């Protein structure tokens, strides 16, 4: 099946491949999917004290569409506030990459990864506040 030019472009030049320190209190990590399903996405965000995502990294085990979806997600995340990031929907990713119906689940996984990374970051912040007795 033919891939869209945008998928191929992201796949061949993936943005923000890499790893952030998952123990850093400013970093949220989302790991979604399963090897047995053929796709695993790890998305990480680094959030400034002002609540802005200043860095995002991904690593993905999956098909070209999965890699492109996570690459695009990191691009969109950078510079957004947490609240803005939560507004990213799988349909936006699918539309931007012209994903065919059989590949929609790749964009769903990317949305899950974003939500999971945000949840991880928030739980760290909650734990920190609890520790400092606020």
């Amino acid at each position, binding site marked *: 099946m033919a*891939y869209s030019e945008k998928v*191929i472009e992201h*796949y061949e030049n*993936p943005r923000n*491949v890499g*790893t952030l320190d998952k123990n850093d209190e400013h970093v949220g990590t989302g*790991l*979604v*999917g*399963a*090897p*047995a*399903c*053929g*796709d*695993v*996405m*790890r998305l990480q965000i680094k959030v400034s004290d002002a609540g802005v995502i200043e860095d995002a990294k991904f*690593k*993905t*085990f*999956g*098909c*070209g569409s*999965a*890699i492109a979806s996570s690459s695009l997600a990191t691009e969109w995340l950078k510079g957004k506030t947490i609240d803005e990031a939560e507004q990213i929907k799988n349909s936006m990713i699918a539309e931007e990459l012209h994903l065919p119906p*059989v590949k929609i*689940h790749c964009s*769903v*996984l990317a949305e*899950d990864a974003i939500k999971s990374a945000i949840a991880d970051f928030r739980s760290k912040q909650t734990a920190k506040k609890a520790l400092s007795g606020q």
Partner: protein
Amino acid sequence: MQIPIYMDYHATTPVDPRVVEAMLPYFNAKFGNAASRSHAFGWTAEEAVSRSREILAKLVGASNPKEIVFTSGATESDNLAIKGVAELYKEKGNHIVTTVIEHKAVLDTCKRLEKQGFEVTYVPVGKDGLVDPDDVAKAITDKTILVSVMLANNEVGTVQPIAEIGKITRSRGVLLHSDAVQGVGKVPFDVEAMHVDLASITAHKMYGPKGVGALYVRRSKPRVRLVATMDGGGHEFGMRSGTLNVPGIVGFAKAAQIMLEEGRAESERILALREKLRRRITGELEEVFVNGSLEHRLPGNLNVSFAFVEGEALIMAIKDVAVSSGSACTSASLEPSYVLHAMGIGDDLAHSSIRFGLGRFTTEEEVDYVADLVIRKVNKLREMSPLYEMHKEGIDLASVQWAAH
């Protein structure tokens, strides 16, 4: 060297130029209908078909050319063999034995017969992708009329012990059908020596044209009879009606002739190339697993799982090379390969499998190019893979609680 490189010889093969040349006169100068008995046009076509039958009989080791029934291809041959036998022998019994790794043309035919009240036993395979003849023996009951086991598997290239299975079926008075499509001409196959009663073959897997195949149907000791699936003029000894595809049949026979003359030497050359590809890939990359027995295997088949890399992503990365994958993402069903699954290979590794098929026109230069490219791209994709990173950190991926979706 020409780009793209074709390494998907199990899917289909290019038609050998010598085959094309042999076929051409039968499109125009010798265009007759082989069933026209009243004039020279028909006789010329009939003679060509007769000569072709002889060559194809020789290819499978048949003693009588009339045991070759021409069809449109292996799917039709498999359907005709299994449905034809089931229909004719249903008074004798309603049980069929086959294997879990057969081609869909066999499996789905069996599934349809199950809906019609037949019982089918699907014999498992081992981790090496081989059928144990003992399992076949144990599956046979007094109701069994047919056993169907492929000669060589289209995905992992494993060559099944047909001779041993033939001994069992013959001694138990059960018919043996073999889908010999992938193996014939490439590995030893002889219907007499192996006690095979029906065999499906096709031209396009052996450098002949698409749309023409044959079913070998034994005529003596035992004489196999079939109910035809197509009604009409009673062509092909009443087993397959329809005007014969004379140019296709002539091409099929030419392809078979080349296999008879050159097959052995060709298999040796292809095996050497495959082994070079295998040694380079497994020697220069870690965590690479060859799927299926190396010993009992088609010379041109290399099926490999590259752990931590998804098969479709790798296919995309090596888009200058035509290969296929057992990954779900390359199929419409999103289910990974049932063949790998039957061998007990985990879904994660099934998603990481690539099938390389080497053949007549594969060169050493192409093998080197493909090995270099695959090694480079697997390394690149692993750098992008969270699973590889976890593996490097010493995390046992099997112990992780994945959120399956």
